[in-house]
């Protein structure tokens, strides 16, 4: 399944001129507000007609201005989850969920009502009116409504942006299940490093209406220069790990990764579960010798493979730890004092407590329960 977009469109004095192709399970359109993410997703959904360009999903042309092709939104079979849910106020939750099914040809209905309701945990809400739901519940129902139209592609426009942290944490696992348990490719708009690092398989980075980079999530997240200024502190390496065991005595979980074992606060996931972690560059210290007498628990040996100037008096140092890249942001002065240079052998040092729910994803840290 591939999504191909090559579009130029002008809205007042704002122009979107973007082209990308993605075959990812979940492709994030990532960028600061005003970068054209929402315009792009509206173009894919058919809510806007582009001035010029081409859009195709899985080889099926939806827009081709040269050929005069424009498939209207109701014939695209593309599900959309809006930031503001947009549930129909005059229908019950069940009515909302069943709405799209009506318009799907019987032969193309693959979404099973009970399965979707179970997947999203909304069985107890079916008889309620949308006005009686919490923000998180509304968003889950909106996801279910889009899924039950049996779409070929699911678009999500900042579905978590209007929710508080607790509600976000409530929904994220459902989006992960959606990504892992259904076959529908997802295009996900977000300006949050935490969401993108956790959910995306591929990232398309947008700025001022242009695509500035695209690629696999791990590679993109290391490019701190691509991140919006207010999110730069959140940038860093993204590592896919597995839970090796839980250290109940000290309330920790030990994750196995290419770079070596990483100790994080106790996660609420079983041993063997995959966990994607993000190590913020600002949380990583560098030592030139194996440290002793240090409280930090994660000490990963590696080699410097890149030194880049960062914001202000900082440098970004990429350390190859046995094939996994860990990113560190340190001061220019530290770099000078430690005489850090390409090819140098160093140790990346990360405190266990620098990991939190935003960086360890699915396994939300819980109080150690004995």
């Amino acid at each position: 399944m591939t999504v191909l977009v090559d579009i130029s469109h002008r809205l007042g004095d704002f122009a979107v001129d973007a082209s990308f192709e993605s075959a990812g399970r979940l492709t994030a359109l990532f960028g600061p507000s005003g970068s054209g993410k929402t315009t792009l997703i509206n173009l894919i959904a058919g809510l806007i007609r582009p001035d010029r360009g081409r859009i195709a999903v899985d080889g099926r042309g939806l827009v081709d201005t040269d050929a005069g092709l424009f498939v209207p939104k109701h014939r695209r079979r593309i599900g959309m989850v809006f930031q503001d849910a947009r549930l129909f106020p005059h229908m019950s939750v069940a009515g909302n969920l069943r709405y799209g099914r009506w318009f799907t040809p019987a032969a193309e209905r693959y979404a099973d009502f009970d399965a979707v309701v179970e997947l999203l945990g909304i069985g107890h809400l079916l008889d309620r009116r949308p006005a009686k739901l919490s923000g998180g519940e509304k968003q889950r129902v909106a996801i279910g409504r889009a899924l039950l139209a049996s779409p070929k592609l699911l678009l999500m426009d900042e579905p978590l942006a209007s929710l508080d942290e607790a509600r976000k944490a409530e929904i994220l696992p459902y989006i992960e299940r959606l990504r892992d348990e259904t076959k529908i490719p997802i295009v996900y708009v977000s300006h949050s490093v935490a969401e993108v690092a956790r959910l995306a398989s591929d990232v398309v980075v947008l700025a001022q209406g242009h695509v500035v980079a695209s690629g696999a999530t791990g590679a993109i997240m290391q490019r701190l220069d691509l991140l919006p200024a207010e999110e730069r502190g959140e940038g860093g390496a993204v590592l896919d790990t597995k839970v090796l065991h839980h250290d109940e005595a000290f309330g920790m979980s030990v994750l196995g990764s290419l770079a070596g074992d990483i100790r994080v606060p106790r996660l609420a996931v079983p041993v063997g579960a995959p966990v994607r972690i993000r190590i913020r560059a600002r949380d990583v210290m560098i030592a030139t010798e194996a440290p002793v007498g240090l409280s930090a628990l994660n000490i990963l040996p590696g080699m410097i493979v890149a030194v880049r100037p960062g914001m202000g008096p900082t440098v970004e140092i990429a350390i190859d730890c046995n094939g996994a890249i860990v990113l560190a942001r340190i001061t220019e002065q530290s770099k000078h004092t430690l005489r850090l240079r390409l090819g140098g052998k160093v140790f990346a040092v990360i405190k266990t407590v620098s990991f939190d729910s935003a960086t360890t994803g699915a396994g939300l840290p819980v109080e150690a329960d004995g």
Partner: protein
Amino acid sequence: MNWLLDLTPDEWNAVRLSIKVATVAMIASLPPGILIALVLARGQFWGKTLLNGLVHLPLILPPVVTGYLLLLTFGRRGPAGAFLAEHFGIVFSFRWTGAALACGIMGFPLMVRAIRLSVEAVDRRMEAAAGTLGANPVWVFTTITLPLILPGLIAGAILSFAKAMGEFGATITFVSNIPNETQTLPSAIYTFTQVPGGDEGALRLTLISIVISMAALVASEVLARRIGRRMDIE
């Protein structure tokens, strides 16, 4: 109390005719009313101000003028009247249908205003959402827009009905005051006031008029409240 319910056959006819005329005027106004309200609320076209003015004309013109214009247009020799009579056998002049036409036109601005306000209040993003779920524009209108403007539709219909119940000037100018054919409640009351000893009859019909109008108003309130509760829009 007996004198109140003891209506003469002519008086009964006036009551029945008024209800019939008002109901037909209301129902016949609804489809064009919805259409014009949609066009005015959402259309962007040259001449929109003109159309808006035209719709509101019956509200600002003296009713006699509206009635006379109807007579000129829809009378037996009027261009529209002659055409309709010849091709469709529809005759308005001096018939109850003419009364319904006059009442419908007089109530039309009120109906359009009420519906237009509710159309403008509809969150168009809801309609976009329905579109992404596979609904074509006709389905979007029937399953989303129409239910969302229902309170406005009811308000507009009741206003039109109430206006028709009270319409006098345009009706009497256009179709005159013929008992059993075009003599609605206001015309009947007017007739009573013109003859000696007609006070009792005028009072009877006035009270009936008030009761019918109040009943329509209360019914619309109850309906609107029930729909509002069902939709639960904060």
